[in-house]
């Protein structure tokens, strides 16, 4: 067993920042990540980091924009922390050497971004995330912070009190990918989850193959509620075969969308008579899918994004990168043919419920980054707001876990914050764990031993979890059964079909049924590669289980919320219902039978109170 003060799970932007913060605070910190840090998906971010740095701009304006963008589902204390701290975090990055793009006077450049009232998005070319990730990893190297790379965290070592708010997290258990050993990590002060996105719940996503929602799934099963899971952002222009993102810049420069009939459908069918192709992400995504669903899609799958008319010179000058992407990942030359595009999952607003210090309701367990939901994005994330979230809340979580006093948190966490419980969701099948089975339980992810928190020492808690996970892997490898890939495929297809941009009650129910089937099939899953060396079959199989849990919470939330807010669109409910729905959806595992409840949205900030208004740009 390894022992450290603070264990950070995940080494993307959020994890690295948390580790550095904990280290600054004097803690002995270690990063545990299934990928080497520089392979994390933060590296894929292109656009930029929002920070109110300049005269004429103010962090309160940034906060206002963010709240408006969230469609009034963000929590004001969190949003204010984000916007107030972002400038100093950005300057910190600059001091760490991040190669930002520069103005003539040598200062960091900023550009305008959708939904912002001031050009406050700092950037480093079209590869901001890459530079952010590498810059922070460099600082980790400089500080000599211990990194356990290629260690797959399978479960958290959490005690077993009946009430999750009394539980304690003492560490985690990881699978050493190099040699198949299962090792315990004991954390004296805290565990920070920073496992990133979960786009792999969908079959078409801009997310990495490694973005499988392990963090939310593990925390969820440990009793931590997941918040606002129904809010998933879809990007309208991604390449069909890989999901690689084609930046909004193409439409910004005048790119045109056509359907299979060659019609400019944004106008032709009246999706957005004014803005046309430049309407907001959700509108364009929905328009594209409508075209495809009504039979006007190319190969029943995608539409065309055409930039040929912009002329070679202009394209080469401003959109060169796009030409490379289309060529490398789709085999299409954007100068001679239109590029195929379709909407793809892009970002998950929901996640592990935390307060503005990154704490969950389980003591010693923290979360930060895309896997968490501090609720700054509410129902819709503004471009350029995820990266500041990583550094701001990553740092908060790191400091707090290492013992810095950050004062009283204003956001409440845990089931005790519930204002109302959902009793009749009308789910067609019972969600959650399957009934008692034999030792397959171990293979399925293990259950908390019901000792009611009796275990004497934290070390024993970790040991016990190690043992459970060892059995789980043995069982998966020892038996014959199905390949997880099939189940994953089925799950992803169902999510994309029914829980995508368009959500109808019937479809969501259908999805829940399929998810249930996937759960059942998963009971018979097996790993066919017997090797102890670099066994990715084991890892992918476990990830699939996590995806099932995450997909279910997304669908449950989507079914519960019968309104149209931000990224969440419901066929039967076409308006935002502030009277009824100004609240967060929470799903809590409750030892296998998910419970849905709601908590208040906090619109009351330290600076000002935010009044919900119609969101129009």
């Amino acid at each position, binding site marked *: 067993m390894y022992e450290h003060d603070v264990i950070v799970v995940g080494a993307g932007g959020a994890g690295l920042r948390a580790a550095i913060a904990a280290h600054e605070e004097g803690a002995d910190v270690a990063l545990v990540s299934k990928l080497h840090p520089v392979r994390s998906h933060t590296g894929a971010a292109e656009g930029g980091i929002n920070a109110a740095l300049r005269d004429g701009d103010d962090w309160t304006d940034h906060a206002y924009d963010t709240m408006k963008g969230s469609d009034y589902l963000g929590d004001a204390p969190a949003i204010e922390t984000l916007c107030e701290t972002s400038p100093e975090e950005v300057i910190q990055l600059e*001091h760490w050497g991040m190669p930002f793009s520069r103005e003539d006077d040598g200062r*960091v450049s900023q550009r305008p971004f959708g939904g912002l009232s001031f050009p406050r998005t700092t950037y480093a070319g079209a590869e901001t995330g*890459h530079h952010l990730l590498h810059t922070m990893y460099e600082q980790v190297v400089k500080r000599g912070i211990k990194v356990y790379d290629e260690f797959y965290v399978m479960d958290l070592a959490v005690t077993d009190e009946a009430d999750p708010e009394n539980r304690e997290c003492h560490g985690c258990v990881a699978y050493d990918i190099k040699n198949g050993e299962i090792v315990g990590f004991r954390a004296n002060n805290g565990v920070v989850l920073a496992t990133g996105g979960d786009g792999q719940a969908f079959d078409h996503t801009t997310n990495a193959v490694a973005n499988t929602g392990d963090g939310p799934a593990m925390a969820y099963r440990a009793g931590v509620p997941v918040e606002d899971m129904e809010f998933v952002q879809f990007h309208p222009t991604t390449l069909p075969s*890989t999901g690689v993102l084609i930046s909004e810049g193409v439409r910004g420069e005048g790119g045109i969308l056509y359907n299979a009939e060659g019609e400019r459908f944004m106008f032709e069918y009246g999706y957005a008579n004014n803005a046309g192709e430049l309407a907001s992400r959700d509108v364009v995504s929905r328009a594209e899918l409508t075209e495809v669903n009504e039979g006007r899609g190319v190969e029943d799958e995608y539409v065309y994004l055409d930039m040929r008319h912009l002329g070679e010179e202009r394209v080469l000058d401003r959109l060169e990168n796009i030409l490379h992407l289309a060529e490398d990942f789709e085999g299409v030359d954007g100068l001679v043919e239109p590029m195929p595009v379709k909407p793809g999952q892009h970002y998950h607003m929901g996640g592990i419920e935390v307060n503005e210090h990154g704490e969950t309701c389980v003591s010693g367990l923290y979360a930060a980054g895309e896997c968490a939901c501090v609720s700054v994005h509410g129902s819709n994330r503004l471009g350029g707001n995820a990266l500041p979230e990583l550094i701001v809340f990553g740092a908060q979580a790191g400091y707090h876990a290492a013992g810095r006093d950050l004062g009283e948190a204003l956001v409440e966490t845990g089931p005790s914050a519930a204002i109302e419980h959902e009793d009749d969701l009308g789910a067609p099948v019972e969600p959650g764990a399957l009934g*008692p089975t034999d030792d397959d339980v171990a293979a399925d992810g293990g259950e908390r031993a019901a000792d009611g928190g009796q275990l004497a020492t934290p070390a024993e808690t970790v040991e016990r979890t190690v043992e459970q996970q060892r059995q789980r892997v043995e069982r998966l490898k020892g038996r*014959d059964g199905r*390949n997880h890939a099939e189940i994953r495929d089925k799950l992803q297809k169902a999510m994309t079909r029914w829980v995508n941009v368009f959500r109808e009650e019937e479809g969501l129910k259908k999805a829940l049924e399929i998810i249930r089937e996937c759960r059942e099939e998963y009971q018979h899953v097996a790993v066919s590669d017997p090797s102890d*060396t670099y066994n990715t079959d084991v890892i992918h199989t476990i990830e699939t289980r996590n995806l099932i849990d995450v997909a279910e919470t997304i669908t449950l939330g989507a079914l519960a919320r019968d309104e149209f807010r931000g990224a969440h669109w419901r066929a039967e409910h076409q308006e935002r219902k502030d009277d009824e729905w100004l609240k967060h959806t929470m799903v809590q595992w409750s030892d296998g039978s998910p419970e849905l409840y709601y908590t208040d949205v906090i619109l009351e900030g330290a600076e000002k109170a935010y009044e919900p208004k119609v969101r129009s740009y």
Partner: protein
Amino acid sequence: MSTQVTEQEQTEDPAEDQSEHQQRRLAEKAERREARDRMRERAETDLEKADTVFDLKVFRYDPDIPEKEKPRFDTFPVPFTKGMTVLDALMYARDHYDSSLTFRHSCRQAVCGSDALFVNGTQHLGCKTQIVDLGDEDDARVPGTVRVEPLPHQEVVKDLVVDMEHFYDQMNAVEPFFDPDDLPAPDEEQRQARENREKIKMSTRCIWCGACMSSCNIAAGDNEYLGPAAINKAYRFAMDEREGEGKKQERLEIIEQEHGVWRCQTQFSCTEVCPKDIPLTEHIQELKREAVKNNLKFW
């Protein structure tokens, strides 16, 4: 739940347990067979439907498994679809034929640097390499066979996975972090001229894929040679004017050590294979000149 399970098990007498166990094993076996058949069927229908099929010839090796202890090649027929990359083909083979086929991958968009592979005899990122680009221009766009091997000159862990530790060590040897002589106040940015950022821009693009190192004959022969990626990393900082003269001096000393820049024989293969188009040789050469200039000062 788990307590219930143990209760259940306790009530069963051993004989019954035995047969039940066996039954379950059999059921599992049948299921497995079924699953395998289904997988094969899926692949077969795909193959029938496809206009073009090519052979993916993949290097296999696993020190843990007796049958795979001896390196070999496996060939998987893969149905070609438009836009298919080498990584897509590998994933197809893994998900349809053999789930033990092992390779690193994550982002699928050439930013994570996980999947540098040896494809048809050159270093490529799997995700960034279109199958049609491997074809013979005049003949068929889709090649008959695509041969995929792990990066040469690195220890193979399993199948296409190589040990990257050595590469990471070399990267770490050049003090790969920003370390300025002095910093402005905490709320003030350092200034950097645009030209200076332009100068280091290409060098900051490295994604640590290791393709360059694997292609360099010198690095292959001299294990301690820092290698193009690490030298490029040193360049990135040495040329960054924000760091200051003192640190630059230190950096030049690092790259001048025994296994540093002077080892480079300008073979250019690193520059040719770099998926991020970093002019590595140029950067190495510039550092050599910089070092000579710097030393001439003291003559």
